């Protein structure tokens, strides 16, 4: 039997940006909050002196502990799924601060187009242009409504940036100016401008100067140490939950984080959640933590899986299209949507080893509404970028394609080109399909005996055509930048989702909208079905735009906490009336 603990005002599952923001806002308002975190107790001190490429960038030390739980993957429903056994690509994290400590820090706003994607596409290209199995939907919130929350997140995280000339309206500038401009960024900007594009400096959560956020937390100036993405910051100069929101929550004395607390169920009766069940993985003891509100902020996978395990909401059924939980998984799959081009320079050397997680420039000339989809064999679009994250030697051995991957020639060329190489990267929007979804795996279990989350994903021509197109555009920029050899990955009809595709930008599963018919949560991330349950994070995105997700996760988390406070202060009930006309 689980040990029943005293009731608290709010229990939060997960301590990343989403959970951290909820913790800070609720505790500041005087509510007692318990955060349950499955991973280790991590503080900034753990990051001091952590410049170890093998440990962090190659073996992914800060990533999820897969001995306890993982995901399984397959392409179609008639296949058995296979578990992801080690840490091959970027996935989600573990421990205090979650993935949000070892992120790179690119912090974008999605486009107004993204939030109203179905309406906008229908309006511009006609209803028939949307394939029948493409389950895009409006988000139930528009950009203008979310703008103040973006602004709030950017100020909490001290984002360094400059206005995107093609971007949506902003109520204020970024709190800090852009980071330093390197030769490669200058070359990218000049080439892009020569081609008529509108590049701007990538908004970064690495600080261009020392900064004090509105909660009074100091984030140090970035010293450009290079060990940034996949590492915690050695200098307290990358905005993460540990140096910001969790610190703010701790100052209030209303906050407790319990580590090694693995949440296995959200407990509930008819229309409310009553708390959560968790196991202390260091003692094996099981606990019940009752609370007035339950906040699930366990990343896309954890959020979706906890709903399925707890039997909250109706699981999505790909055969009938009924049900919501697990629906609309989208991501920037590494082998297709996150691809870029390589440029090799015979006569120019770059200090490629020097960098910062989000040091770069971006352009949006082909993103969302900027691109005319009447002219393309795909919908939506992509951004193009250059970034200088600090190239470390194990992970960066760029060689022209005709070079073997080992032996004399490999050694010679990889040494020669290591500092003579630049990349133009890109990120494309990913649109959901009825055949792509998450559910529980019937074969594989976690250490508690509960089924793992299973991903079923198959690419379509939408993604492949988009990738082919964007690669041509990236090539043109790289040529304009003066590279002697320009090379791109080959995208063929065989390019398919596999375990190497899995990336940290996975979204969907507990999606938002304006009606319970089409969504699990409303725009306060409040479950339609359980009014005191808030499921916060990328899980609520009906699709992922052509940007890294965390700016939008942060904004939606601030929006959600406003709802939580309103709920706790008021008489309960849904914070938003479901839209009538969508009701069956």
């Amino acid at each position: 039997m689980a040990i029943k603990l005293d009731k608290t005002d709010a229990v939060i599952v997960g301590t990343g940006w989403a959970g951290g923001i909820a913790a800070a806002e609720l505790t500041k308002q005087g509510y007692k909050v318990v955060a349950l975190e499955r991973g280790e107790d991590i503080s900034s001190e753990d990051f001091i002196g952590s410049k170890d490429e093998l440990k962090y960038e190659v073996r992914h030390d800060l990533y999820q502990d897969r001995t306890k739980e993982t995901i399984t993957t397959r392409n179609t429903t008639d296949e058995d799924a296979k578990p992801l056994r080690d840490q091959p690509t970027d996935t989600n994290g573990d421990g205090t601060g979650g993935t949000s400590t070892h992120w790179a820090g690119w912090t974008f706003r999605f486009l107004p187009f993204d939030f109203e994607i179905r309406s906008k596409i229908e309006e511009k290209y006609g209803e028939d242009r949307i394939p029948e199995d493409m389950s895009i939907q409006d988000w139930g919130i528009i950009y203008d409504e979310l703008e103040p929350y973006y602004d709030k997140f950017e100020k909490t995280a001290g984002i360094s940036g400059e206005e995107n000339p093609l971007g949506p309206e902003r109520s204020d500038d970024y709190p800090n100016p852009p980071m330093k401009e390197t030769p490669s960024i200058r070359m990218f900007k000049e080439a892009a401008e020569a081609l008529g594009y509108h590049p701007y400096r990538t908004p970064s959560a690495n600080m261009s100067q020392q900064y004090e956020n509105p909660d009074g937390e100091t984030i140090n100036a970035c010293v450009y140490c290079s060990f940034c993405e996949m590492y915690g910051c050695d200098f307290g100069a990358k905005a993460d939950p540990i140096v910001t929101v969790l610190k703010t929550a701790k100052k209030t004395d209303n906050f407790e984080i319990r580590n090694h607390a693995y949440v296995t169920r959200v407990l509930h009766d008819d229309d409310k959640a009553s708390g959560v069940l968790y196991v202390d993985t260091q003692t094996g003891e099981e606990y019940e933590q009752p609370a007035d509100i339950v906040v699930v902020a366990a990343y896309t996978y954890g959020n979706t899986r906890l709903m399925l395990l707890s039997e909250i909401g109706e699981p999505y059924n790909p055969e009938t299209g009924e049900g919501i939980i697990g629906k609309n998984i989208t991501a920037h799959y590494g082998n297709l949507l996150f691809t870029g081009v390589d440029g090799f320079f015979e006569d120019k050397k770059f200090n490629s080893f020097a960098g910062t997680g989000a040091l770069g420039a971006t352009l949006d000339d082909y993103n969302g509404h900027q691109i005319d989809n009447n002219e393309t064999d795909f919908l939506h679009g992509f951004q193009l970028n250059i970034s200088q994250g600090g190239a470390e030697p194990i992970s960066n051995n760029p060689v022209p394609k005709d070079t073997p991957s080992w032996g004399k020639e490999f050694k010679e060329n990889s040494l020669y080109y290591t500092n003579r190489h630049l990349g133009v990267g890109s990120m494309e929007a990913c649109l959901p399909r009825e055949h792509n979804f998450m559910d529980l795996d019937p074969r594989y279990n976690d250490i508690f005996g509960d089924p793992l989350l299973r991903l079923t994903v198959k690419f379509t021509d939408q993604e492949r055509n988009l990738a082919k197109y964007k690669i041509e555009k990236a090539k043109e920029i790289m040529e304009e930048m003066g590279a002697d050899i320009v090379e791109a990955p080959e995208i063929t009809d065989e390019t398919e989702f596999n375990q190497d595709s899995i990336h940290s930008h996975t979204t969907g599963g507990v999606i938002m909208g304006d009606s319970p018919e089409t969504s699990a949560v409303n725009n306060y991330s409040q479950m339609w079905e359980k009014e005191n349950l808030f499921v916060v994070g990328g899980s609520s995105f009906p699709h992922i735009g052509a940007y890294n997700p965390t700016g939008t996760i942060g904004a939606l988390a601030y929006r959600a906490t406003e709802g939580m406070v309103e709920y706790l202060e008021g008489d309960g009930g849904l914070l938003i009336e479901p839209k009538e006309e969508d009701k069956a």
Partner: protein
Amino acid sequence: MVDDNFKDDQEQKEKVDSKTDDGQGVSRRSFIKNSGIAAGGVVGGALLGGLLGNPFETEETTSQTDSQKQEKNPTEARMFFTRYEDFVVLEQATERIFPKDNNGPGAIELGVPYFIDKQLAGSRGTNANEYREGPFVGSKVVDSRLTRGQIFIIALRKMNSLSNERFDTPFNEAEEEQQMDILKDFEAGEIDMKDVDSSDFFTLLRDSTIEGAYADPLYGGNRNMDGWRMKEYPGSVASYADIMEQDEFVKMDPVSLTDYQQKS
């Protein structure tokens, strides 16, 4: 920050390195070959030690330079590989992947085989940080019920037996071209390795070699940070703020974690 001494250091090292290589290593090898011990299977450590201790001490080995002495690293002994015979196959295989050349040392001189030995002796070799529930499906190394350590042993012995079959000589004594032929067959997925695709094992071997060449020396490879020197990679530098905007390439003497991390 620019390191003027870099080239001199490098030349100095080259000399020392080539000396080491032409010294006892070759004599040892030719002794084993000529004496027939290599073909004869198990040779006790005491016997080898007795035979190879004094008789082959040449002038070079007795008059070691200071830096040669420094290179005798007490952490360089086999932790995972119990059979010397397996380890020498590993040495040669990694050297073919990352060979010594005009740029500088190859895998052996960088300590890559010892790096891999240490990796396999730890969680990497036992897949201890991974999801290990069955059923095991798929042909990749990571999907196998075998651990990485077991797979390495199977593969290295396969390399050796193939070399004996094809060229009538153990892998570590085969010609470079012959060793390459065998490695290429592994790479092409043409070698039968039970439930593991040999091409995926080859990727593991290749990646482990690159890791050993460039990981911080704390892991036992990248000896003297020479992997980093060849790559003009500065290692654990606290800050590049001063050079970020600069057009010129900056060469620095590398720093490893042993100097970077806080110590009492």
